[in-house]
C-alpha cells in the first residue's frame, strides 16, 4: 500500500467532489430545464468550452491507452496524433452550423436535429440508440482507467473489497452529476487539466533526462517498431490502415453524443471557431503522452520485479502508471494518479449526461410521454444519467475487461454510421429519412459482420482492389457502404417520384 500517494489522491478527490456540488450554483440557472441541467444553459464562453471539450475528448482512457498502444504496437499506435489533427479543421467547417440550428429550435441532441430536419422520429430513434450503445462501453473504459490507478496505489483488486474504491468513486460521480448537471464536469475539467499538464510535463522532462535523452530511448526500440512496415506485393498494409484509422476516428469523434453535448453548451458559433484554433494545444500533450509509451518500453519497466505483477494484470495499460511509480516520489505518484482518475470522471459525467439527454428527448418524450413538462423531462434525464452510469459499472465489475475494449471498438464503428444523416441534414437536399435509415442499417450490418469476422479483436478489414490489397478501418469502409446505399436509394425514390424536395437546414 502506497500511503503518501493514497493520501494525496484522496485529498484531491475530496476537493473535486466539493467543487462538483458547488458548481450547481455557478452562473445559476433553473436546473428544472433540460438545456440548463444538460447543456449548462448554453452559456459557456471560450475558456470554459476549451476546458470542457478538452476534458471531454482527451479522456483518462486516452492517457492510459495511447501510451499502451505505442508500448505494444509501436508506430501504428501513433495514429492518435493525426487523428486529433484532422478533427479540428473538420469541426471548424461543420460544428458552428450545427450550433446555430440547434439554438434556433432548442435542440439538445443531434437526434433532435434529425427529428426536426427530416420530420422522422424513427431516424432520430436510430441515431439516439446508436449514440447510447456507443457511449456505454466508453463510460466503462473510463472506469477501467480509475481501476488501473487504484490498483497502482496498492489496493487489493479482487472480489468485493477490490471493487469498493471504484464503487465510491462512482457514487461521488453519480451524485454530483445528478445535482449539478453539465456545470460539474465543466468546473472539474479545469482542475483535471492542471493536474494532467503538471504530470505530463514532469514525465516528459524528467524521465528522458534520466535516461540520456530521446536519442538513447529510440535507439533501444526495435527498428520494426519505430516505423510502419513498407508496402509489399501490392499490399498497402499498415500505411492505409494508419491513415484510415486516423480519418475514421476523427470523423467518429465529433459524432459521439458527449462531443455534441460539449459543443452545444458553448455560448455561440464564434466560441466554437476560436476553440478549433486553440484546442490543438491538447494534441501536443497527446503526442508527448504517446512518446511516453516508448520511454516506458526503453526503460524496461515491465520486467522490473516490483512492477511486473501490475503488467501481468493490466498489460501494456500500465505503461504510464508504471513510469510514474518507477521514476517519481510517492506524493507525486498521488498527483499523477489523481490526474488520471479525475480525467476519467469528467468525460464519464459528460457521457452519462449526453446519453441521458438522448434517451429523454428522443425515446421517452417521443414515444412514451409526448406532453411531458420541462420539469418532468429534466427529472427523467437526471434519473437516466444514473441508470447509464450504473450500466457502465455493471460492465466493469461483471464482464472481463476485454469486453469493454472490444465493445468500445465496435462503438466507434457504430457511431460513424450516424454521419450521413447529420451531414445530409446540414448540407444536402438529396436525401430523405428512409434512404438514410437504409444506409445506416446497411453500414451497421456490414460493420458488425466485419468486426465479428475478427472475433471483435481488431478493427481492420482488407479490401481487394484488382492487384491491390488495402487494409483499412472497418468503420470507414462501413461508412462508404452506408453512403452508397443511402445515395442510391434516395435516387431511386426520386426516380419513382416518391420523394419531395428536402430543403437543407440553413443557408440554402
Amino acid at each position, binding site marked *: 500500500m502506497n500511503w503518501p500517494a493514497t493520501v494525496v489522491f484522496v485529498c484531491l478527490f475530496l476537493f473535486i467532489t466539493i467543487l462538483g456540488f458547488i458548481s450547481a450554483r455557478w452562473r445559476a440557472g433553473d436546473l428544472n430545464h433540460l438545456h440548463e441541467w444538460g447543456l449548462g444553459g448554453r452559456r459557456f464562453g471560450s475558456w470554459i468550452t476549451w476546458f470542457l471539450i478538452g476534458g471531454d475528448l482527451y479522456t483518462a482512457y486516452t492517457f492510459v491507452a495511447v501510451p499502451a498502444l505505442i508500448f505494444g504496437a509501436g508506430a501504428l499506435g501513433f495514429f492518435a496524433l*493525426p487523428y486529433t*489533427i484532422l478533427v479540428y479543421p473538420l469541426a471548424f467547417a461543420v460544428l458552428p452550423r450545427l450550433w446555430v440550428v440547434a439554438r434556433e429550435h432548442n435542440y439538445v441532441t443531434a437526434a433532435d436535429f434529425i427529428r426536426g430536419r427530416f420530420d422522422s422520429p424513427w431516424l432520430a430513434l436510430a441515431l439516439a440508440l446508436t449514440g447510447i450503445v456507443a457511449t456505454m462501453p466508453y463510460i466503462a473504459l473510463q472506469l477501467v482507467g480509475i481501476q488501473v490507478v487504484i490498483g497502482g496505489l496498492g489496493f487489493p483488486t479482487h472480489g468485493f473489497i477490490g471493487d469498493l474504491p471504484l464503487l465510491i468513486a462512482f457514487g461521488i460521480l453519480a451524485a454530483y452529476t445528478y445535482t449539478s448537471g453539465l456545470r460539474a464536469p465543466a468546473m472539474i475539467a479545469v482542475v483535471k487539466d492542471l493536474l494532467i499538464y503538471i504530470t505530463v510535463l514532469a514525465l516528459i522532462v524528467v524521465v528522458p533526462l534520466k535516461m540520456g535523452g*530521446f536519442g538513447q530511448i529510440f535507439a533501444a526500440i526495435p527498428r520494426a517498431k*519505430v*516505423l510502419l512496415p*513498407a508496402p509489399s506485393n501490392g499490399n498497402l498494409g499498415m500505411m492505409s490502415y494508419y491513415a484510415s484509422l486516423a480519418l475514421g476516428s476523427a470523423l467518429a469523434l465529433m459524432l459521439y453524443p458527449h462531443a455534441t453535448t460539449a459543443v452545444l453548451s458553448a455560448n455561440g458559433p464564434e466560441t466554437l471557431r476560436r476553440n478549433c*484554433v*486553440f484546442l490543438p494545444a491538447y494534441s501536443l500533450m497527446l*503526442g508527448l503522452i504517446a512518446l511516453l509509451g516508448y520511454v516506458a518500453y526503453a526503460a524496461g519497466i515491465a520486467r522490473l520485479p516490483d512492477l511486473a505483477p501490475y503488467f501481468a494484470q493490466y498489460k501494456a495499460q500500465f505503461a504510464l502508471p508504471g513510469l510514474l511509480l518507477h521514476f517519481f516520489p510517492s506524493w507525486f505518484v498521488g498527483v499523477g494518479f489523481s490526474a488520471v482518475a479525475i480525467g476519467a470522471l469528467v468525460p464519464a459525467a459528460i457521457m452519462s449526461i449526453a446519453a441521458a439527454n438522448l434517451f429523454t428527448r428522443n425515446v421517452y418524450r417521443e414515444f412514451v410521454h409526448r406532453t411531458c413538462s420541462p420539469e418532468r423531462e429534466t427529472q427523467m434525464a437526471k434519473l437516466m444519467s444514473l441508470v447509464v452510469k450504473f450500466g457502465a459499472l455493471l460492465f466493469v465489475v461483471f464482464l472481463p475487461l476485454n469486453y469493454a475494449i472490444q465493445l468500445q471498438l465496435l462503438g466507434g464503428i457504430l457511431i460513424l454510421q450516424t454521419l450521413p444523416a447529420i451531414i445530409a441534414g446540414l448540407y444536402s437536399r438529396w436525401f430523405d429519412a428512409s434512404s438514410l435509415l437504409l444506409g445506416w442499417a446497411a453500414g451497421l450490418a456490414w460493420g458488425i459482420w466485419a468486426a465479428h469476422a475478427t472475433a471483435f479483436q481488431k478493427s481492420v478489414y482488407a479490401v481487394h482492389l484488382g492487384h491491390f490489397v488495402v487494409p483499412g478501418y472497418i468503420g470507414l469502409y462501413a461508412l462508404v457502404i452506408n453512403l452508397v446505399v443511402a445515395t442510391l436509394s434516395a435516387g431511386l425514390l426520386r426516380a419513382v417520384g416518391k420523394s419531395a424536395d428536402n430543403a437543407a437546414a440553413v443557408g440554402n
Partner: protein
Amino acid sequence: MTPPSVRPLGWLQIVLLGVPCVAVIIPPLFNRIDPTLWGVPFFYWWQMLWVPLSGLFIGIAHKTWTIQNREGTR
C-alpha cells in the same frame, strides 16, 4: 437571408483547412527515421509539428473568413 455567423466557407478557407489534413494523412510522405530532431525520428516530429501548424492554418482560415464576411455585409 443567411445570418453572417453561418455563411459557408469560401475556397480559400477550404484549402487552408485542407493543408494540415493532407500533411498528416499520407504516411509514405513521412514514414522515415532521418532527419531526427533531438533524437526523435522524422515520423514522430513531423506529425507533432503539424499540431501547432494546424492551429495556425485554422486561425488564418478564421481570420480571412471573418474579414470576407465583414466586406460582404457592407
